């Protein structure tokens, strides 16, 4: 139940030349997470592979850019079980660099062509905009007379700012045509301020429109000119893409080979400070589960050419916060593990809440949604949709089974309460009893949560929080004293003196602790102390009451079913069954969804927030291939 209890710190002592191979073996096993602390820097001061890493990075840089330019993802996998040697890496990097030098200019050319296409489109659209006007645009652009007129485009985001700034120098933006992210605009103003306008337009990323000479006197010639220009651009673009395609076809195998080798080199590159060396000796250090150590040793024996020594030890107390924790549960617990991770990763040594979460989630869901028929539908839905739901099938099956079990206890089948004799109680027969049970369950749940919180804090060596923090020993005693006193009062025995004394004492201790731990100015300190103490009492009270919803939803389920039946009874024979079927679908989907959310809420807010730190480090083992950043 303690997260990462199986984790060990391992040190692998080996010959330096075996480091890349050892990295690859460990990555294939996915059982080792590197530890980069300089624990051995005095004995082994060198971090091998620095130049190797730089080369790999450059090689990936060229390969990534080539693949993006060629727009041809390498989908075929080529296995490369051998670690990459330095000479091979140099050769690959040089080849990729040369390949990029060959293809790179095509990328620039393609971008230039894109720009030319965009400009041509703007020109066509702008000329179209002005086609009906009896104005000689080329003369206006050429700068005659007192009026300074510019026609061009700017990024759409810049319009408002440009308009404001130009207004200050008495320029106007006369016409705006939308073209998605770019706007075509006409600007007019006095020629006196031309230099001001130039500088502002430069800052606004303005691009002037080149008006062809033929625009005004020969529209047909212009149309042909633009068409010819477009055809030329298309041909150039086509030729470029063809040449890139040819290059890709003749070099595909080599690119695949390069990628496979680079991927095989990734684990070694990713080791960084976890690998150290001095002369011919090398060391690898990291974390691995004890259950995998035998397998690691066997595989290393098979693969390494030189002798090695694998040592392991339990994590020291000062390393607890550094130990990575495996978070992937298999089988029925997997969906619950995913939901736990939505909240956080358990710290090393902290109580792993996954199992408790699975049991209480299923239990509360069943209690709120107890119905044999509806539970069976949820269970069958999970099984039928297992291909889509993957591991979440288990969650559906467990929730459905729990709903069926409670349905049997409540004697409810598709909302009908007289087909089955309840093994325990029909919720509507005694709502107060149901609420009392829910409250009792809440008290038990909160007590369990607080106990785990106390243990977790003691394990984290935080005695003060274990004693005084929310959910700590003193707040728990205060909670029990309040609860005991209130129960006694409700039973007509008055509020016991012992309970009152315990409440006063624990409150004084809590207030003193809050006061002592804050060093804010006097007024703020009073406020913090009052609020924090109030929060502890209020937190327990509201959390306990929160669990009343467990009973409320079981009652709600019956009430909703009753509403469906009442509505169905007002219909004819066909309508009756339609309403029954649709009503049940409605209950299963809507209420099932709400109950699941409410259960999750109770788990997260009333459970996890009480005892779960959730700030642990997930175990991310070294793996073969890309996706490990460095």
């Amino acid at each position, binding site marked *: 139940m303690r997260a990462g209890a199986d984790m060990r710190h391992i040190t692998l002592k080996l010959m330096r030349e075996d480091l890349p191979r050892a990295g690859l073996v460990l990555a294939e096993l996915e059982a080792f997470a590197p530890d980069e602390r300089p624990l051995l820097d005095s004995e082994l001061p060198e971090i091998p592979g620095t130049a190797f890493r730089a080369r790999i990075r450059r090689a*990936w840089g060229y390969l*990534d850019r080539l693949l993006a330019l060629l727009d041809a993802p390498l989908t075929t996998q080529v296995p490369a079980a051998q670690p990459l040697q330095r000479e091979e890496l140099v050769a690959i990097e040089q080849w990729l660099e040369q390949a990029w030098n060959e293809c790179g200019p095509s990328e620039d050319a393609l*971008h230039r062509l894109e720009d030319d296409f965009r400009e041509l489109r703007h020109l066509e659209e702008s000329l179209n905009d002005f086609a009906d006007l009896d104005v000689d645009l080329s003369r206006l652009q050429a700068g005659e007379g007192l009026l300074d007129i510019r026609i061009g485009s700017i*990024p759409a985001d810049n319009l408002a700012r440009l308009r404001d700034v130009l207004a*200050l120098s008495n320029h106007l933006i006369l016409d705006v045509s939308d073209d998605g992210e770019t706007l075509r605009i006409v600007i007019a103003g006095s020629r006196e301020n031309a230099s001001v306008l130039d*500088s502002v337009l430069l800052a606004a990323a303005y691009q002037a429109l080149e008006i062809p000479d033929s625009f005004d006197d020969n529209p047909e010639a212009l149309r042909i000119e633009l068409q010819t220009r477009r055809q030329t651009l298309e041909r150039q673009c086509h030729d470029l893409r063809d040449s890139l395609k040819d290059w890709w076809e003749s070099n595909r195998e080599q690119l695949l080979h390069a990628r496979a080798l680079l991927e095989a080199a990734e684990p070694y590159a990713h080791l960084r400070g976890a690998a150290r060396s001095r002369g011919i000796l090398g060391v690898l250090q990291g974390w691995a589960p004890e259950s995998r150590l035998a397998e690691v040793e066997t595989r290393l024996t098979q693969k390494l050419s030189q002798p090695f020594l694998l040592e392991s030890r339990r994590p020291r107390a000062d390393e607890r916060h550094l130990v990575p924790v495996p978070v992937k549960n298999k089988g029925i617990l997997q969906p619950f593990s995913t939901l736990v991770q939505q909240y956080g990763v358990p710290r090393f040594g902290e109580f792993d809440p996954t199992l408790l979460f699975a049991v209480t989630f299923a239990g509360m869901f069943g209690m709120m949604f107890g119905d044999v028929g509806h539970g069976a539908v949820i269970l069958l839905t999970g099984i039928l949709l297992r291909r889509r739901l993957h591991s979440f099938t288990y969650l559906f099956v467990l929730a459905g089974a729990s709903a069926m079990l409670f349905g049997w206890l409540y004697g409810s089948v598709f909302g009908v309460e007289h087909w089955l004799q309840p093994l325990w109680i029909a919720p509507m027969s005694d709502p107060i009893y149901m609420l009392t049970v829910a409250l009792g369950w809440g008290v038990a749940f909160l007590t369990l949560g607080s106990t785990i919180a106390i243990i977790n804090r003691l394990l984290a060596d935080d005695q003060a929080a274990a004693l005084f923090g929310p959910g700590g020993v003193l707040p728990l005693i205060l909670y029990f004293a309040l609860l005991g006193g209130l129960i006694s009062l409700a039973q007509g025995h008055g509020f016991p003196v012992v309970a009152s004394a315990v409440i006063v004492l624990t409150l004084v201790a809590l207030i003193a602790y809050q006061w002592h731990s804050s060093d804010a100015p006097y007024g703020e300190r009073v406020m913090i102390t009052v*609020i924090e103490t109030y929060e502890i009492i209020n937190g327990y009270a509201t959390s306990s009451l929160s669990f009343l919803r467990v009973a409320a939803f079981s009652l709600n389920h019956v009430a909703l079913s009753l509403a469906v039946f009442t509505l169905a009874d007002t219909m004819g024979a066909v309508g009756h069954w339609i309403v029954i079927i649709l009503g049940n679908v409605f209950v299963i989907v809507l209420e099932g969804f709400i109950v699941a959310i409410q259960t999750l809420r109770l788990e997260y807010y009333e459970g996890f927030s009480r005892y779960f730190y959730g700030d642990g480090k997930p175990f991310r083992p070294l793996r073969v291939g890309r996706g490990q950043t460095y």
Partner: protein
Amino acid sequence: MSRFTDQAYLRTRLAIMGRNLLSREDLDELIELPLEELAAVSGFDAVPGDNNAIRLATFERTLMQTWLDELSALLRPLEGPARRLLTHWASRYEVLNIKALVRGKIGQLPIDEIEKSLFRLPGFLSLNHDQLLNTDNVVELLRQLQKTPYQRLATQALRRYEERPDPFLLDATLDQQFYGDLIDRSHHLSGTDRTEVLSLIGRIVDGHNLVWSLRYRYNYGLQAGEVLYLAIDGGRVLDRARLQELLHAESLADALRSLPPGLPGGGQLPQQITLIEAVMRQDLFAYAERAMRYSPSALTSVLSYLVLRYGGINALYAIVHARVYGLDEELLQWALDPLQQEAA
């Protein structure tokens, strides 16, 4: 952001974190410490290694990580626009990274050299630095950036760079976009949060606009209209009309004579832009300190703390950096507080 418990959480956190802030006296004491003691007090001695340049880079990242950890703790109770505002504020580190990448590419520095100047940020803020580093030039870098959440910023920068490849124009574009988005996000807040946050950001923008507008206009000789276009909207005192008035002055001295009321120094600012920058920074920090303690908006107090903490971290790093490289104490004092040194 109005829940009483959230406000209490933030106030409590700030009361505790406030102890991390460095006063002028603290900085003076640090400057006077011998290097060994300074290293122990600042945490620099915890950074392993022999190469001081690498150690300093690691130290800077550690300080930045501290700032981000504190930000994460303060973000915890926040959601919606308040959370988005603070997350955006944190992305200023990524904007600094982009600037460093651009400068590195313009200067054709080796990849490793550029990388040393980058901050390593948590996943939710960080770009793929490898991809950006592996570009041949600024244009390719900006094209790569267009494929990231910084697409708008990159498109503007690319167009401007293609028209005129000036690094300062790119810097101005990046700042303009960053602060523009920050102000947009502030407008999504409601009630007191909105007024108070805009007032704080207005001061930051005023400082930025005044210093950079004067620099562009009178040091770099840019046209008034262009400078006006590059200014950031959302200043508290310096709106566009007032900036225009300022920028049409013939000289820096004339410009300073026509300063609008409401700026620090009561319109009597020093004649050097570096000193003006120091006055504006001092005023901002004094305001932020008041806002951190007394603002009715807990969000503004948090933002003020982050501003102050950022300033403190920069100062601490500058001191350690200067002492490691044996910089003259007087020069260091001047760099940290040019106003006091000028007065002396």
